[in-house]
């Protein structure tokens, strides 16, 4: 008998060969790993798969914003349609609860008043080009969408303040060396990226006519915020962009001031359990975020913001707290418009706008808030015997389980109204070239006549000024936890919640009668005991003497 068949030998040889090859391969791989230079680390901050600098379509030159948009839409075919469906575009919001038609297109606010009749100025913050008539829908052409204002990463793109949304295309005054250069549109287009604080802030930090004027919790100090100002947006904190919380889908940005999620009961957003928005604290922090149980016992009735934003306008930028339009129009002795600053350097009076007051490190006012905001629209009648008029009022109460105590900036001032018809008036403040705009003619009668006619608003021809009040929910400028409010800020006789009287708050509330009776009885027993003791001592002495 032979030992192994030849076939058997062949199989063994093959197996040995495979093994040897594998070992060699393994060794080679190990060597290669050690020898190869380290691969360039992925830049996680800019994980885009496209470098727009290389795109032929974006080489320019571009003569206008719409030309850039056309180039963008060549690839991003749905972007314009998506954006045109959002409130950033329509400036219109049908409130599902109050059925009020809101949005910048319709509301009156307590700053500049109405967009209507002041379009080219106000729509410089529209995400489009050329919306110059609020009575019409915004322009429908796809190329009217402004991609760059939200996606510029160079910081060089800026919209002309009076250009109805267009950027400046040429230097307004070539002799002015300090004038800001018009953007190089091709350069900007090649360097687009995700939205940053700068993009959102270019409008939202400057609402109401200047840095920090409107919101109080949104101003340019957030761009380079120290940790103490904002733990989320500070580079020393989470270094968030706005969109990290205000998550977007199809260009629609989450988070609403008209219908706020005042109490998010969904908790932490995880796949399959999400409302597709991180614009609530609970989306990341959950609904039991504290280690101390008693603090967690508060979250059903107190919004996180109420304790964790101890004050707003903390970044060194003052916010406007009072705007009295009634004094506008007064000119200097030389007939020129006045511009008066207060001791802090803030504008105190402008002939164009009237009197102002500002605040820094402002303690918010607190209200029960279920998320629903109702406006006094220009078509709504008001009652001037009940001043201040609520430009908007927030709904909520202790009895309602969806309400929580929220912090607000309360903006106050005086605004023009029709004392006969009892409603707020559309004020025509800006025009480049007519003789009715308040800011160029300083004539209230003309400005209100022009504004109301333009807006087709009933107007008796008489005007006066009514005191108004507007509520702005405070939700940014979250402080480090060590700076959160101490309990006694609210739990004390005259604390921050002194105005909210529809519930029992320990240390604030008490029965005055019980307190009087209790302390009197205790005092009576104490005095009685002392008198009894005194009697005993006296009688004992007398007995000893006798």
């Amino acid at each position, binding site marked *: 008998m032979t030992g192994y068949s030849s076939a058997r030998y062949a199989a063994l040889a093959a197996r040995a060969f495979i093994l040897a090859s594998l070992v060699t391969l393994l060794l080679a791989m190990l060597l290669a790993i050690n020898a190869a230079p380290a691969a360039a680390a992925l830049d996680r901050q800019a994980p885009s798969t496209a470098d727009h600098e290389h795109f032929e379509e974006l080489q320019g030159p571009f003569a206008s914003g719409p030309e850039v948009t056309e180039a963008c839409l060549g690839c991003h075919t749905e972007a314009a349609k998506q954006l045109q469906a959002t409130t950033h575009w329509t400036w219109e919001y049908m409130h599902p609860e109050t059925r009020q038609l809101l949005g910048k297109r319709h509301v009156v606010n307590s700053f500049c008043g109405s967009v209507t009749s002041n379009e080219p100025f106000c729509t410089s913050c529209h995400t489009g080009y050329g919306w110059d008539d609020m009575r019409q829908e915004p322009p429908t052409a796809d190329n009217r969408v402004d991609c760059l204002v939200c996606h510029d990463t160079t910081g060089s793109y800026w919209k002309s303040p009076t250009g109805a949304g267009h950027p400046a295309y040429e230097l307004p005054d070539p002799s002015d060396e300090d004038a800001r250069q018009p953007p190089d549109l091709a350069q900007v287009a090649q360097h687009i990226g995700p939205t940053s604080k700068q993009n959102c802030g270019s409008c939202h930090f400057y609402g109401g006519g200047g840095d920090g004027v409107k919101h109080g919790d949104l101003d340019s100090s957030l761009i380079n915020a120290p940790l103490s100002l904002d733990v989320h947006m500070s580079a020393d904190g989470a270094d968030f962009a706005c969109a990290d919380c205000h998550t977007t889908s199809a260009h629609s940005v989450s988070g609403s001031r008209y219908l706020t999620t005042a109490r998010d009961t969904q908790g932490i957003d995880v796949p399959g359990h999400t409302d597709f928005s991180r614009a609530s604290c609970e989306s990341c922090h959950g609904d039991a975020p504290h280690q101390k149980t*008693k603090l967690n*016992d508060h979250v059903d009735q107190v919004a996180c913001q109420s304790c964790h934003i101890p004050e707003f306008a903390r970044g060194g930028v003052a916010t406007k707290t009072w705007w009295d339009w009634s004094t506008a129009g007064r000119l200097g002795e030389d007939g020129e418009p006045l511009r008066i600053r207060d001791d802090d350097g803030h504008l105190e009076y402008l002939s164009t706008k009237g009197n102002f007051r500002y605040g820094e490190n402002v303690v918010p006012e607190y209200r029960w808030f279920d998320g629903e905001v109702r406006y006094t629209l220009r078509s709504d009648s008001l009652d001037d015997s009940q001043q201040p008029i609520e430009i908007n009022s927030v709904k909520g109460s202790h009895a309602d389980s969806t309400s929580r105590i929220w912090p607000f900036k309360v903006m106050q001032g005086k605004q023009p109204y029709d004392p006969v018809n009892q409603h707020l008036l559309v004020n025509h403040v800006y025009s480049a070239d007519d003789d009715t705009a308040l800011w160029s003619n300083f004539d209230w009668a003309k400005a209100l006549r022009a504004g109301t006619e333009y807006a087709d608003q009933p107007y008796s021809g008489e005007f006066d000024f009514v005191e108004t009040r507007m509520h702005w929910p405070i939700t940014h400028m979250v402080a480090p936890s060590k700076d959160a409010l101490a309990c*006694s800020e609210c*739990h004390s006789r005259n604390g921050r919640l002194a105005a909210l009287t529809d519930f029992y708050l320990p*240390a604030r509330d008490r029965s005055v009668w019980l307190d009087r009776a209790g302390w009197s*009885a205790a005092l009576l027993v104490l005095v009685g005991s002392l008198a009894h*003791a005194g009697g005993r001592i006296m009688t004992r002495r007398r007995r000893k003497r006798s």
Partner: protein
Amino acid sequence: MKREMIYKRFERFWHWSQAVLIFFLMFTGFEIHGSYQALGFGPAARLHGLAAYALIGLWILAIFWHLTTGEWRQYLPTTDRLGAVVHYYLIGTFTGAEHPFRQTTQAKHNPLQRLAYLSFKLLISPAIWISGLLYLFYNQWPVWLQDSISLGSVALVHTAAAFAMLIFVIAHVYMATMGKTLFSLVKPMITGYEETQEKRAFENHPPSR
């Protein structure tokens, strides 16, 4: 004369730790009530809760001790010589009369004390405990409870009971100084021993069993 153990070790431990806790609870409690600011509301509230839990624990031990030792009978009310004791505090103590009651291990408390301590245990303390626990667990109230009472009314009861406690403490502390000397009544509460006169002690009728 005879030296006799009146207050056993546990009883003294119970009395003094309860005293410390009650003083602390009153101090923190009236701050929570807003009467003054000392520790700050937050620390006061947290410590008030911790002290309350400690007192609840102590009470559970004390109830167990009273039941197993039969000492609970010390608090059975009696009218026997109640009038005499009241008469002593109102008049006798000024005229140099002897206290009409001598304590024994069978009857440590005079009839007035019995009444005072019984109302402490059956009225003030339960009012404090029940309202306090409701207050503490306000957030966990079931719906039917939310619908029937308010935090304000719970706080009202708790505060009223706290005032009753304060008044009890003032009177209790004063009357503890009314012995032969200033500290002669406090001393047995510390050492446990009282020098009793057998003859007088015998006169006291032990409570019926």
